[in-house]
């Protein structure tokens, strides 16, 4: 069955297919599933956003794709296929595609850059290892890359250590390394969370430009719906290890179907519209990861929860729009007011 998926996805020009992926941190108290059977794919050149709160499993999804799940966690079910040829991602095969056809940048590049090695050496090492470039070629290409990511004085930066750069500059260097091998998929895990807004805007612009120039797909992982809305064509909303809503950005913002998505949209104060005296907020807090949930994980916090919600886990399904999926029993019912009518 998974092969059918892959064949279909190949036709669709996908560069990553996540099929029924579950990730678990087994413990005495339960199965410890922190990602529960999620499926999605990203097409070549597409920009997809994965939104969720801390503990929703969004970063772990990225790590699962990269085959970098910290022990004792493991992929407990499902498959991941990556690259143009959609090879099955395993810890063994990752050596071939990690860093080349799939690259990742993280929230704090300081942890992915070696603090004791000059930046130039780190970029060149990468180029020489993956592309068998000669020493001189690697140097030339490294300067080009740093230039391309908007580093003012590439030759000087090459000689510097990561710690002397500002957060924004470090993220640019990380991006330069990530795109050095023309990845088909670039996973950006909270790339701007540690940055100031004005720098965030610069880095997001750069990320967009780079992905367009190299025709790399981007999977942007963020807690900030605003960032995702401005950057991505499609959005996946995660809650407690499940994708609860997915669809084109426009559709999700204009007509969110899941109560959680709706709450996310209204709990951030607007910058332009009239402000309410109180923000609409979701009562309670997300369930702790790894606890076995019966029914919908959002039900305890949901104002629309019915008896069925705490019994049966809602599957991701389509309503009217064939591209817009939601995992909610109540969505589409008469109960469900449109967000715009508020």
């Amino acid at each position: 069955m998974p092969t059918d998926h892959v064949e279909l996805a190949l036709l669709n020009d996908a560069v990553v297919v996540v099929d029924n992926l579950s990730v678990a941190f087994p413990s005495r108290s339960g199965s410890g599933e922190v990602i529960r059977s999620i499926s999605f794919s990203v097409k070549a050149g597409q920009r997809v956003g994965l939104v969720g709160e801390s503990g929703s499993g969004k970063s772990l999804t990225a790590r699962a794709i990269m085959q970098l799940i910290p022990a004792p966690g493991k992929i407990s079910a499902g498959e991941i296929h990556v690259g143009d040829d959609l090879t099955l991602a395993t810890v063994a095969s990752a050596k071939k595609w990690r860093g080349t056809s799939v690259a990742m940048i993280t929230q704090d590049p300081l942890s992915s850059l070696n603090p004791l090695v000059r930046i130039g050496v780190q970029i060149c090492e990468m180029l020489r290892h993956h592309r068998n470039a000669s020493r001189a070629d690697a140097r030339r290409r490294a300067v080009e890359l740093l230039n391309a990511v908007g580093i003012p004085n590439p030759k000087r930066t090459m000689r510097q250590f990561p710690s002397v750069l500002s957060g924004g500059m470090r993220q640019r260097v990380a991006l330069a390394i990530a795109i050095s091998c023309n990845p088909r998929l670039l996973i950006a895990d909270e790339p701007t969370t540690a940055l100031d807004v004005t720098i965030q805007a610069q880095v997001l612009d750069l990320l967009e430009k780079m992905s367009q120039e190299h025709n790399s797909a981007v999977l942007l992982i963020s807690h900030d719906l605003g960032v995702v809305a401005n950057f991505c064509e499609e959005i996946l909303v995660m809650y407690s290890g499940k994708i609860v809503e997915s669809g084109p950005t426009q559709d999700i913002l204009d007509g969110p179907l899941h109560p959680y998505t709706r709450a996310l949209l209204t709990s951030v104060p607007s910058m332009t519209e009239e402000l309410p005296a109180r923000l609409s907020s979701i009562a309670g807090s997300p369930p702790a990861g790894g606890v076995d949930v019966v029914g919908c994980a959002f039900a305890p916090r949901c104002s629309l929860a019915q008896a069925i919600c705490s019994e049966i886990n809602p599957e991701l399904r389509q309503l009217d729009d064939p591209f817009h999926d939601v995992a909610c029993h109540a969505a589409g019912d008469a109960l469900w007011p449109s967000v715009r009518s508020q």
Partner: protein
Amino acid sequence: MSFTLQPGETLGIAGESGSGKSSVARALVQLTRPTGGTVSLGGAPVTNLKGQRLKRFRRRMQMVYQDPYDSLDPRMSVSDAIGEALSVRGLPKTEHAAQVAQLLERVKLPATIAQRHPNQLSGGQRQRVSIARALAVNPEIIICDEAVAALDVSIRAQVLNLLKDIQHDTGVGYLFISHDLSTLRFMADHVAIMYVGRIVEYGTSEEVFSNPQHPYTRALIAAVPSVTRRGERRLKLSGEPPDPGNPPSGCPFHPRCPEAVETCRTERPELLTIGDAQKVACHVVQWGREKTPKTEVTA
């Protein structure tokens, strides 16, 4: 820099990292001593206090910190943490339990939480305990230093609502420090925008957000990613904030400013009133944008 905070009002301070907004907070509660100037509370100067007078003053101005994982002592239960504040107020131990329960109720936490330790609480719950601890000494002002920055959006909204409710009930004033402009727009009555240790624009929340004057304020507001303003052509800033220890000459913003003129390089603009209460530190705005000669800075 100088500013005033009226009782029961919220003053928001916005700025990027290195703008000095957290230093302001620390200087106000005198964790660090300001290098100059005075802080007055209720008309009386409170700078350079020592001993008992410093302790008395501290009760009047409290602080809620950014990091919910570090602002509570991991080895103290919730009731001990709040009890410590009650002891400072001089409340006998016998009355602690009742007061703790009352404070927990005020921050909308179940009373059962009193015996827990911070490691058994979520980030949002910890921040509520911090708020309860600050309230325990009946302060006149609470400084919220990025108090909701570490919280998830859904939890953040709860805490912001709670802070508003508390202000409504007790009339406490907030000094709300945040890098998040949308949060400030919701919380603050007045807003001060900081850049490299100075206020560049000050005014009511309404004035600053709907009619920003300083080019930096404009860029900052434009840079906020918002779901309601997608795809707009945005004013973008190039470059990075300067090293606060070595700011540029003249207006510290001039190397990044799209409107900078020659004067900006040499003379530092004063913070001057331009509207009813709105103040801006920008030559171009003070002269009037139309009247300013369009000469590019030769940088």
